[in-house]
């Protein structure tokens, strides 16, 4: 029987029996269920109307407030002076107060006083105060309907149109980022755990000299290719298991959110590209881990070294907010083409915008070249350094190894 297959079979079975792999595989549906539970809970809380500001006092030194003192569910209670309002707040009669200074109409400045520690005024409070002021300022100038329209949030309905002028089947929505975003995070975590697992295994084999027994039976290429393929297949199995549970979880999420996330549209190419990048990502990280495993003395040292690329793998997620704000920036193209960030970056970008085909093609080609070239280099480094114990080779020695191999 082919020795690469025997190594592959052994490594694959060992990988999927490992706690890290099992936990990661189960964690996704479990966390998704917890998330769905949380959405459902938040919906219930929202429905029960407990999300309100409470009572706010105001001191109107500008003399502009003339209408009712109720805004939405919040009581707006007038006070004659700042001292009275402050005393009421300290006595817990009101939760906070605002001061509309005499020169408000010229400066536009309002002062808010609160006992709460907070990073900033909540959007709800801002909207409430703004609505209150607008209603009073425009009361005699425009109709109540117009005032209500001004106070309402902008209802922007965007329709995406194809190059042919038809309405696109894939409409824009923030919800569309949900699936690629979650998938990217899982991909990043999965690559990190997979790398650690491979490095730990290699470290154990090197430390115990079992590697010598293996190399007296198989070639370095057979061993390393078997390991890389096993890790890639274990990753693929993981994503397939997630995909099997996905329809059930999406249905559950839609009903739990009361239809709020029912508008999720997964880009058509996402599924195929997701699998392609998952496999390529796994293979690339396996190759990198072999290189790191070759120059480390043990699993612990290797895991520390691997942090360089496992952390870089998460860069696209750190800057996801910037990607949403500036999707056209050339930096995203660079991260799409750079092999270490390519899998996660491409997945995140698919949720935010279209990616030109040439970028995806170039990214896949670069990944494939990196995997094949990296494997060849990793095998050379491994061959030269597998017998070194207790001393990690320096950069000069690694370059020397590559020249000599």
């Amino acid at each position, binding site marked *: 029987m082919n020795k690469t297959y*025997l190594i592959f079979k052994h490594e694959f079975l060992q990988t999927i029996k490992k706690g890290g792999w099992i936990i990661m595989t189960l964690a996704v549906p479990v966390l998704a269920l917890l998330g769905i539970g949380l959405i459902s809970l938040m919906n219930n809380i929202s429905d029960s109307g407990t999300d309100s500001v409470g009572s706010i006092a105001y001191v109107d030194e500008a003399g502009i407030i003339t209408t009712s003192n109720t805004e939405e569910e919040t009581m707006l209670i007038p006070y004659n002076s700042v001292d009275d309002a402050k005393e009421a707040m300290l006595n817990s009669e009101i939760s906070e107060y605002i001061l509309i200074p005499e020169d408000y109409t010229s400066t536009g400045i309002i002062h808010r006083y609160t006992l709460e520690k907070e990073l900033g005024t909540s959007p709800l409070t801002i909207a409430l105060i703004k609505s209150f002021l607008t209603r009073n300022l425009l009361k005699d100038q425009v109709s109540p309907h117009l005032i209500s329209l001004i106070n309402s949030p902008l209802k922007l309905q965007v329709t995406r149109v194809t190059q042919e002028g038809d309405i696109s089947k894939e409409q824009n929505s923030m919800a569309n980022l949900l699936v690629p975003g979650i998938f990217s995070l899982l991909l990043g975590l999965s690559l990190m755990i997979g790398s650690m697992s491979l490095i730990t295994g290699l470290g154990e084999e090197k430390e115990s*000299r*079992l590697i*010598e027994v*293996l*190399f*007296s*039976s*198989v070639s370095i290429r057979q061993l390393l290719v078997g390991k890389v393929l096993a890790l890639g297949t274990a990753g693929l199995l993981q994503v397939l298991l997630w995909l099997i549970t996905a329809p059930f979880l999406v249905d559950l999420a839609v009903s739990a959110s009361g239809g709020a996330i029912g508008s999720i549209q997964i880009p058509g190419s996402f599924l195929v590209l997701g699998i392609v990048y998952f496999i390529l990502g796994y293979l690339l990280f396996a190759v990198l881990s072999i290189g790191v495993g070759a120059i480390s003395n043990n699993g612990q040292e290797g895991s520390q070294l691997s942090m360089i690329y496992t952390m870089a793998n998460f860069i696209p997620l750190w800057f996801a907010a910037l990607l949403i704000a500036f999707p056209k920036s050339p930096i995203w193209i660079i991260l799409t083409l750079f092999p270490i960030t390519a899998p996660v970056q491409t997945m995140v970008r698919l949720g935010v915008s279209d990616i030109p085909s040439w970028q995806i093609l170039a990214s896949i080609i670069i990944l494939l070249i990196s995997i094949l070239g990296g494997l060849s280099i990793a095998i050379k480094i491994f061959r030269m350094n597998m*017998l070194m114990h207790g001393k990690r080779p320096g950069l000069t020695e690694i370059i020397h190894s590559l020249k000599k191999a």
Partner: protein
Amino acid sequence: MAVIEVNHLYKSYSGKDAVKDLSFSLKKGEILGLIGPNGAGKSSTIKIILDFMKPDSGEVRIFGQPMNEGFKNRIGYLPEERGLYKKLTAIDLIVYLASLKGMNKSLADKRAHTLLEQTGMLENKKMKNKEMSKGMGQIIQFIVTIIHDPELIIMDEPFSGLDPLNTEIIKNIIAKQRDEGKAIILSTHQMDKVEELCDRVLMINNGESVLYGDLKESKEKFDKNSVMVEVDGEIGKLSGIVEQRINNGCYELILGSDATPQDILDQLRKKGKIIRRFEITTPSLNEIFLGIAGGHNE
């Protein structure tokens, strides 16, 4: 045809010679004892033979050809520091590693059971490696080394960490392998085992061969021409002796080049001494080893 033929091997690390002009050969049905102090170059020699690393110059021929992947199934290797996959059971590990040597599963399983029985480990076959003692682990590794019936067996310190009972079991299996025609390299510090098992010996010091050949002939080369004598009372003055030492009433007499043990025995008899012990001494391998290693390292 020699199973291994090593010709003028050189290997250096960072300018220091690890192996220097080393040549030797090994035939079928022969055990070659590879001995030398720590850092002498034994492990480097083994790793070059197994093609784990390339020599700077020189040639290694296995089964008459340069080493290639196809020969790996015909070689059994037991490294000095031994480790096992901790979570695998003994039987699973043996069968897996045997499959990498080209054995099919059922044959590997059958032979594993035979060897486990021979080594008294059959009842532990389902034990996970992490639960095993060091000695048990070593026996499993030894089984892994020979399970595929290799023609060439290379063992680095096969007895280290074994209790006397297991040492005897392993020693007998090694001897049996030799009798079946296997070529064996036995690298060890345990000189008594080399004397008991090996047909020939290769002593390396500072990467160089300092003693190589038939074990008996090699020992004779270092014969000090001495006898051990124990008699009632004093030994008295004897001719032909250049040096004498007394240890617990036993005399070690170093003879001159023209004197023979028979001359000494005749003189003692003429003197009417009651002889309790008269033994022609040959140096042990350990003494030769210490003498050579000490001399070269001075």
